[in-house]
């Protein structure tokens, strides 16, 4: 078992003929993922990296049994791409596209929820379960199968930390990058129950950042409903209020969403909170060592 993706995951890549779509189709396949179809309107009949391309997601689903989508289409068309995937029966949609207007995302989120579909992202690196499947763009090199779950709002910082876990000789069960936008389809609180239920996850790494209250909400959930050890890191302690720190969501507005409140909440919830990113793998290794049979 793993979280949300596994060997039965069959991916359709929306926007497969674009540069990113093509590159990451190859990467996902190299990871061992079943990438069964691509979609680019008007390009039906061609192939990309050996994957057949269709005009519409519905065609891809009917012809290839695709059950997950990885969306690379540009922001102005991303809403339509998501609606199309959900309409065609896809129930897991990873949206890599960045700069999607949040008003669009509000519509996408409601449409997905009303139809029982889950969105990861947008503006996210996606999800990967080493040895099973990857939907998204996290570099393959950072992974190694193992028992550490990872949930993160960040992209490259996730790679850094996941890579650190690998360099400490450990591996990951499933890693989810939630994305850095103000409105995301899957939040920490949405993702935590999957890791709680996953028998292949022994402990969890949570990587947050300033802005919003997702980490505070997560702390609340962890305190009452999460039984596994948690190691956390919050980026953005050095960020001044009112400045967007790259991510649209990473902004301290009206005095809310500071690193301090997030660290304090996680601390209260019993998580070990790292001061430096490179402390995270160290803490993980310590917990694993302490739990290992002697």
């Amino acid at each position, binding site marked *: 078992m793993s979280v949300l993706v596994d060997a039965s995951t069959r991916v359709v890549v929306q926007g497969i003929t674009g540069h990113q779509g093509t590159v990451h189709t190859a990467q996902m396949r190299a990871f061992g993922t079943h990438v069964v179809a691509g979609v680019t309107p008007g390009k039906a009949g061609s192939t990309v990296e050996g994957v057949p391309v269709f005009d519409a997601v519905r065609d891809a689903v009917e012809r290839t049994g695709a059950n997950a989508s990885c969306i690379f289409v540009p922001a102005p068309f991303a809403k339509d791409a998501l609606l199309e995937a959900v309409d065609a029966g896809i129930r897991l949609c990873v949206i890599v596209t960045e700069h999607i207007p949040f008003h669009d995302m509000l519509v996408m989120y409601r449409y997905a929820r009303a139809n029982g579909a889950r969105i990861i992202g947008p503006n996210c690196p996606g999800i990967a379960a080493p040895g099973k499947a990857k939907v998204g763009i996290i570099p393959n090199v950072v992974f190694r199968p193992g028992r550490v779950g990872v949930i993160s709002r960040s992209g*490259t910082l996730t790679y850094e930390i996941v890579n650190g876990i690998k360099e400490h000789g450990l591996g990951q069960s499933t890693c989810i990058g939630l994305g850095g936008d103000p*409105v995301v389809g899957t939040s920490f609180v949405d993702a935590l129950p999957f890791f709680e239920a996953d028998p292949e996850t022994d402990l969890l790494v949570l990587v947050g950042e300033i802005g919003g209250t997702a980490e505070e909400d997560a702390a609340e959930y962890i305190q009452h409903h999460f039984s596994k050890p948690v190691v956390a890191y919050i980026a953005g302690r050095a960020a001044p209020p009112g400045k967007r*720190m790259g991510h649209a969501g990473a902004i301290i507005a009206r005095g809310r969403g500071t690193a301090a409140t997030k660290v304090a909440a996680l601390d209260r919830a019993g998580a070990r909170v790292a001061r*430096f990113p490179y402390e995270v793998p160290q803490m993980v290794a310590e917990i694993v060592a302490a739990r290992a049979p002697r």
Partner: protein
Amino acid sequence: MVKLAEWRGKELFRKYGVPVPTGRVVRSAEEGERAAASGSVPLPCVVKAQVLAGGRGKGGAVRFANSPSEVHAATAAILGLEFKGEKVREVLLEGKVAIGRELYLAIALDRSLRSPVLMASAEGGVEIETVADGAVDRQPIDPFPGITGFERRRAARTLGLSGGLANELDPILRALWALFQAEDAELVEINPLAVVGDHLLALDSKVIIEDDAGFRHPEYAEIRDDRTPLEEIAREKEIAFVQLDGNIGVIANGAGLTMATLDVLMELGGKPGVFLDLGGTDDPKKVTEAFLLMAEARPNAVFLNIFGGVTRCDTVATGLVAAMRQVPEANRFPLVARIRGNNEKEGIEILRAAGVTSVPDLRASAEAVVAAAGGGR
């Protein structure tokens, strides 16, 4: 995000059907005097500096005038003022009204709920942060079906409005919602919404437009935000660039890694001064441009911290080497590089050929750049 000046927000209010006082924006004392003399601005009138910061009333940026010559004097006194770091270039003249109660209305995004919320308070006219939580009613508004009758009725009850005033509130709320959606706003705020006689009037506006919806709204492209000139250039080149009060330049990729790098430098006693996020590019030209931009910010030292994903290490190294050749002698800076991830080996090799060593350990590399910038513990 694009924060609109009060007068621009009020133009939107007028367009969508939120009543605002009769008024006009002017850019010189003479223009102001003429407007008052011609009757296009009623007298007596309010003269308000068009700056984005709050607290204008107490700060002398709002005055009153009873005659065209007084308008001239007040406008002249305000124009060119420096108000909380912003220079006053525009002044809004508006007929003065007899204010009864002052109310608060806003629509903003609630991230945790993943929903817009309508905020209403009978205690308007002050900074909403100073109002007790219990005095601000928050209602989530579902984009489908949009703002409903029962939500509008509850807002009227919260504001203590009934009869004709409640009837006037109804279209104001519809208009606010329409504006919030159609203009891709992050925030639409009326503070105060004033009871003036038997009517409601929006006496101030605060409208923030989301950047990401720019493809739908070319009309906002030319409205400048409170960015520094370098930030503005970076924006045009689609590079996330933020200037802080320090002397170490940071070039990283991805918001989280960039923030973490700043945090580490700060913990180690360094002072990050420029924050430059390459994002997910793998175009070496963009990397070169980013470096040249960084050079213009004249940092004491630069820390390049890349974890290659979409952005490959060799791309960054190639762009960096190209940039190093173009930076004028005077602008050169000490550079500490750390490149990891996709195509790490190739990247390290390219850097080595150009005389730059990549330090793989984050702590060690961060300490090196803090030392190079002349700081540290």
